[in-house]
């Protein structure tokens, strides 16, 4: 009898133990990721665009891995190719201690020389790396050029030392030294001017969880598992296939039919549809990295252009802060979010991501969506419908302007039409203009538009100077030509704080000052919506990346 009781107890314990237990990851399988466009060059020195970055992150080593702490919104850095790191000389020197068991896919050991050599290429004008600005804080020589002999030291193969001109935020120092690096033993044979056309950019030698297998332009890029890369553990999926499918509708159908496993950038409607109708799919979102806004030019574009960027005179309408506030109030941002984004977006009230709790000022509240109050402010500023034609006018001039945006973006097209309709209700004529993306980008840079809708992808560290710095010739991304000495000095104070927690209170003040000035009308934060087939387990889409901790992914079927 005792024997039966013991046996029953053991079986019960085993059964209970197995209930709810997640299956253990297994090696094998293929995961297909659908991309909207092909990668340009598989080289961290040169690659641009999110799709190129999506592939490169699987191939090239990082000194540290980034993690996000949602409780305070800060970044955490954990060891990767660097085992540990330390600061010396009061933050002027950052020393990384590297692993000695990492190898490139051609069998050569990864060493500190690869890092130094890659940084030299980043800094070489002939290479024209899009990330050369990350080197701005390294020690320079008398000519203002980076002195690589002093800036980056490699006393041995497993130590790399970065020396900065001045101490600054430690998180930023870590980020600025996280640039991907390439195998020096291959690139040393290539002249700097030929780095862009090197065949290694098409058949890269890599050193991470995956190795390059093949690339058929405009079709697919195939990576295979590199079992030797075990930081923090080897990847489980055998093959990653990036399929290039330019049309969104086709990508969506590939996801629904199971031909693609992961598709980024779904529309909110598609996400809702998937959640209702496709039990084999799930939706994960990358929040608070992208926002869109209406830019109002603060300076008179015509005079600025005619004077060859010499005469800065306030714009006759948007140069007035009260008018900008009234326009913000007249635009029903709540309806915009509800009408297009639904649960995949929220009203934006400034350039600081709500995820950065240490810097985001939650006491700043969105301006009310109140057309009547907007009209009241406009009347106070002299904009009244004198001739009874339903259009506001002042000194004989009607309240009329053009908003420009890029074509081919349905979200911005919807926003523009809604803004036109909202402004018309209070007697403002707003013309819409759509231009091709390249023309739009150049127009923003050259300050050609009086009003425009554009967006911004925020970095994981805050740097507001390019968009809000008063030196409008230098800060070319300050497309509205916003100028405020108060904001300039606050940006400077925040950037010079060594610790993010010291910078936090400054950013909170900055957040309030910018929102009160309304340099632009902030519209909404929108999510990067990612559709994932349930066969792919253990994905962790988060603010950092849709592919965060990709080495944890596994599949447990035999479909692919």
């Amino acid at each position, binding site marked *: 009898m005792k024997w039966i009781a013991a046996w029953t107890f053991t079986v019960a314990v085993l059964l209970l133990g197995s209930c709810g237990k997640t299956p253990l990851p297994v090696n094998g399988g293929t995961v297909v990721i659908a991309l909207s466009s092909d990668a340009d060059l598989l080289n961290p020195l040169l690659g641009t665009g999110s799709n190129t970055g999506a592939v490169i992150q699987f191939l090239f080593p990082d000194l540290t891995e980034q993690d996000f702490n949602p409780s305070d919104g800060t970044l955490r850095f954990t060891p990767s190719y660097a085992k540990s790191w330390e600061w010396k000389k009061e933050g002027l020197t950052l020393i990384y201690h590297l692993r000695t068991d990492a190898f490139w896919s051609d069998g050569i050991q990864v060493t500190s020389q690869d890092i130094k050599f890659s940084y030299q290429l980043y800094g070489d004008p002939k290479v024209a790396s899009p990330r050369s600005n990350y080197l701005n804080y390294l020690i320079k020589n008398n000519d203002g050029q980076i002195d690589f002999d002093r800036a980056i030291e490699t006393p041995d193969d497993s130590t790399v030392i970065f020396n900065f001109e001045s101490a600054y935020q430690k998180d930023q120092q870590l980020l600025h030294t996280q640039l991907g690096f390439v195998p020096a033993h291959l690139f040393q044979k290539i002249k700097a001017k030929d780095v862009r056309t090197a065949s290694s950019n098409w058949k890269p030698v890599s050193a991470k969880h995956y190795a390059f297998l093949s690339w058929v332009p*405009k079709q697919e890029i195939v990576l295979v598992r590199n079992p030797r890369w075990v930081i923090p553990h080897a990847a489980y999926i055998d093959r990653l296939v990036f399929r*290039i499918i330019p049309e969104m509708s086709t990508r969506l159908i590939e996801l629904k*039919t199971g031909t693609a496993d992961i598709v980024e950038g779904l529309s909110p409607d598609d996400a809702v549809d998937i959640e209702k109708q496709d039990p084999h799919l799930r939706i994960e979102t990358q929040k608070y990295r992208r926002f869109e806004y209406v830019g109002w030019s603060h300076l008179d574009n015509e005079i600025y252009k005619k004077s060859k960027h010499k005469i800065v005179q306030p714009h006759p309408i948007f140069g007035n802060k009260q008018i900008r506030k009234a326009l913000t109030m007249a635009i029903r941002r709540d309806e915009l979010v509800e009408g297009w984004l639904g649960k995949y977006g929220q009203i934006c009230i400034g350039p600081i991501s709500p995820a950065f709790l240490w810097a985001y000022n939650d006491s700043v509240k969105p301006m009310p969506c109140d057309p009547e109050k907007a009209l009241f402010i406009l009347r106070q500023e002299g904009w009244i419908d004198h001739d009874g034609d339903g259009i506001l006018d002042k000194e004989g001039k009607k309240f009329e302007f053009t908003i420009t945006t890029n074509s081919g973006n349905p979200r911005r097209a919807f926003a523009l039409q809604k803004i036109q309709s909202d402004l018309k209700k209070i007697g403002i004529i707003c013309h819409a203009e759509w231009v091709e*993306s390249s*023309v739009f*980008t*150049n127009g923003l840079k050259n300050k050609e538009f009086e009003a425009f809708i554009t967006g911004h992808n925020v970095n994981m560290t805050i740097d507001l100077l390019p968009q809000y710095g008063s030196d409008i010739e230098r800060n070319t991304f300050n497309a509205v030509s916003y100028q405020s000495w108060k904001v300039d000095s606050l940006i400077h104070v925040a950037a010079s704080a060594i610790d993010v927690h010291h910078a936090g209170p400054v950013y909170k003040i900055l957040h309030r000052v910018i929102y009160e000035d309304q340099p632009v009308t902030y519209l909404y934060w929108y999510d990067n919506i990612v559709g994932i087939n349930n066969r792919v387990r253990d994905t962790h889409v988060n603010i950092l990346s849709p592919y965060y901790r990709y080495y944890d992914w596994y599949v447990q079927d035999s479909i*692919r």
Partner: protein
Amino acid sequence: MVSYIIQRILGAVPLIFGLLTITFFIIRLAPGDPTSMFIDPNIDPRTAEQLKENFGLNDPLPIQYGKWLGVLPPFNGIIEGEFGVSFSKQRPVFEIISDALVNTLILTSVALLLDLLIGVTLGIYSALHRGDQLDQAITVGSLFIYSMPHFWLALILILIFSLGLGWLPASQMHSVNAEQLSIIEYFWDLIRHTVMPVCVLGIASAASTVRYVRSSMLEVIQQDYIRTARAKGLNERSVIWKHALRNALLPLITIIGLSFPFLLSGAVITEVIFAWPGMGRVTIDAIFSRDYPLIIANTFVAGIVVIAGNLLADVMYAVADPRVRIK
């Protein structure tokens, strides 16, 4: 005939050169520039400037033209057959085009065959059975398909045959891991991927071919020589297939010649929707990224195809019709 062809080819050289020269200036004068993808708050502003310098875009336009021709240092321009390196892909432009051209030709040549097969067959049937129910159905059907935009037809086919029935793949030329298939399975996989884009291109073109063939055939069978053929006692089959059809298809030769560039340009939207890696996508990407060398090389290929199509039509016309044969 041979000297005529040589004459035509020699005459095409200045034509192509003029086309490329006009393209060279138009794309440089158009708004936007090849480095606009580097205009981003997260990218060093010096990058765009440096790349402009590297690409030679800071030179005055006449100097750029001289270098492009190859009459100025470094003396390797299009006169030497050097079309340069793609700005966006950093590869020789013809390397990029050669891959894409093969893929487009697979698509468009099969589509052209389908076009002719359906168009000629239904056109002849329609003409010979003018006014009956099937003729009316063909007329309505061809007008319906002809007025249908390619992208709409493509999406409808994908919705039905990929999402609804699951019979055909929605995009690309091959399935994932296709390289692991046997040769027969690999070709079967290619055929399955080809069906929908070929149908979109072929059926849409066939809709107009049906109308051409029908009207041409109707015109021919009312001619005196057809009545004469019947009167001298020839059987109906000989009258239609030997006498009427040969003459009715003469205008079709011109249409076939002109179809080559049409199929290349018409493939742009089809290629984008079906993610077919052909010339259409290369052209679209080159234009959007203002990849000047690639745009010029695409124009060169398109110009050659147009001229070759016209030459082919003329030669075929001469072969088919003794009245226009050149001595």
